[in-house]
């Protein structure tokens, strides 16, 4: 009998959807023209890029001229942070982010810290959420930029972005949000949201890898990180990656179709069944992150007295793909900075498991995981000197 395959790591990446792939393919061959060329090959590619830009812009309520394509979510984050800080005309060296950001943000802030900027890392509550009051207290007269993630990749908690952005606007401070995990999975509308810059990535929403976008509100000036041919309004030079941009545009259309079809309710229903089933069947386990203010496809738990890597590998052995924030999976002796910032102790954080669902996840998949996961934990606990209570 062939082992069932259940991929539950959609926060890491998603498969390219069939319609996305089909839309991309012609632009590797007949649509290969350089979009900056004046001839018909160039014009065809340009038209495709324009359409894709409108589609991606529409996904977040932006205008097409407010979208810049980059090489990845990380590239967008770096462009937003460094580009804004270097372009800032305000006298000030103070920048603010949260303690639970993705490394693309966290390490950029730390690097800027070494370069002389004054960095504040805002604390989070036990759900991993940033509180508006703490931002209010942290903003100073010399604050030039705030970057707080839309939703957390490890625990799925959604931040109160509207409130956080409002505070920044009142204090006239630029506000960036990394929406890589959220975009395409929940409605985002920058025309009603006080956000100045917002990062999106195609491969988290059934698009290809190696393509990201940055929403930059009209009027905001960034210093480019890549100089050259002046593509992407001069903010990100380099010949446009037409197939990937087209794929991104198609992925944005797909995201809207999925949402209209009721996918958000379907997937969050399955996710709740999974989380409820886990905490019911596995003693000494609990959900990490917020249960309600949470990405619809995102599940994460901690299993006490178990090391996450062991769970991950044994799940893999029975055909289930998940991830963990334990030290052993990160290649260091420290478990996830997110879980520690939420106040979990080290020993518990080692037992973290993330299960993120996708559009192709079925109820049978969830039933299979609910059968295998408790069995695996039981086996590992039997090997452990701590038997649990």
């Amino acid at each position: 009998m062939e082992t069932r395959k259940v991929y539950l790591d959609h926060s890491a990446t998603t498969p390219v959807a069939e319609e996305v792939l089909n839309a991309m393919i012609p632009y590797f061959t007949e649509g290969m023209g350089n979009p900056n060329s004046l001839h018909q090959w160039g014009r065809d590619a340009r038209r495709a890029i324009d359409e894709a830009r409108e589609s991606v812009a529409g996904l977040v309520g932006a205008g097409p001229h407010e979208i810049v394509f980059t090489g990845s979510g990380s590239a967008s984050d770096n462009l937003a942070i460094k580009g804004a800080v270097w372009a800032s005309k305000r006298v000030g060296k103070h920048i603010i982010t949260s303690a639970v950001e993705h490394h693309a943000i966290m390490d950029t802030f730390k690097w800027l810290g070494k370069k002389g900027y004054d960095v504040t890392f805002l604390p989070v509550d036990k759900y991993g959420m940033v509180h508006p009051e703490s931002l209010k207290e942290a903003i100073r007269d010399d604050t030039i930029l705030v970057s707080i993630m839309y939703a957390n990749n490890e625990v799925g908690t959604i931040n109160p972005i509207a409130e956080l952005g409002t505070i920044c606007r009142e204090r006239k401070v630029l506000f960036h949000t990394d929406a890589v995990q959220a975009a395409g999975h929940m409605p985002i509308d920058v025309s009603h949201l006080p956000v100045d810059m917002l990062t999106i990535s195609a491969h988290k929403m059934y698009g290809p890898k190696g393509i990201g976008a940055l929403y930059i509100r009209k009027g905001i000036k960034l210093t480019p990180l890549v100089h050259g041919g002046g593509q992407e309004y001069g903010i990100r030079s380099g010949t446009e990656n037409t197939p990937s941009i087209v794929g991104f545009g198609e992925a944005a259309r797909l995201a809207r179709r999925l949402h209209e079809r009721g996918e958000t309710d379907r997937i969050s229903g399955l996710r709740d069944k999974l989380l409820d089933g886990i905490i019911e069947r596995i003693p000494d386990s609990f959900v990490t992150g917020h249960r309600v203010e949470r990405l619809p496809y995102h599940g994460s738990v901690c299993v006490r007295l178990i090391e996450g890597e062991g769970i991950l590998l044994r799940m893999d052995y029975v055909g289930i793909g998940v991830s963990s924030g334990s030290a052993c999976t990160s290649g260091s002796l420290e478990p996830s900075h997110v879980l520690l910032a939420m106040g979990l102790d080290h020993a518990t954080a080692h037992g973290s498991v993330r299960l993120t669902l996708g559009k192709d996840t079925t109820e049978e998949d969830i039933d299979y995981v609910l059968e295998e996961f408790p069995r695996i934990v039981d086996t590992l606990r039997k090997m452990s000197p701590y038997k649990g209570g």
Partner: protein
Amino acid sequence: MYNEKVIDYFMNPRNVGGMADASGVGEVGNPRCGDVMKIYLDVDENEVIRDVKFETFGCAAAIATSSMATEMVKGMTIDEALKITNKDVAGELGGLPPEKLHCSLLAEEALRAAVENYRERKNNQTVTPPCSICCDGCSGNDHEEEEAFIAETSRVAD
């Protein structure tokens, strides 16, 4: 990342379990660091290791190295067993990723601690055990969190 042998020893660990009347028990590591190993020895009158068991809380490498270490020392005298190093254990497993050598060191230390415990019991001596709290050597940190955790979890440990 792991070779097939490591995966085999992780998926099908040998000598796993506790031992009610062990002649020596060694426990090293710390839940804070994500790995704790406990090795039980049954040593006969000629100081030959008749049986050996282990219990490990930790990653795949930690489980595989403790399993391999127990397999290697079974039938050895305790003097022979003390000569086994973490490199020997990792070598028998066909190599470990560099970041996992920490785990093989733990297996060596657990074995050593079990032998020391056996000798203490035999000679009725008490030796102060090394600090088992810190992941990378003790630097006199505050151990409150770990101690609380160990106190909470050890109620069911033995």
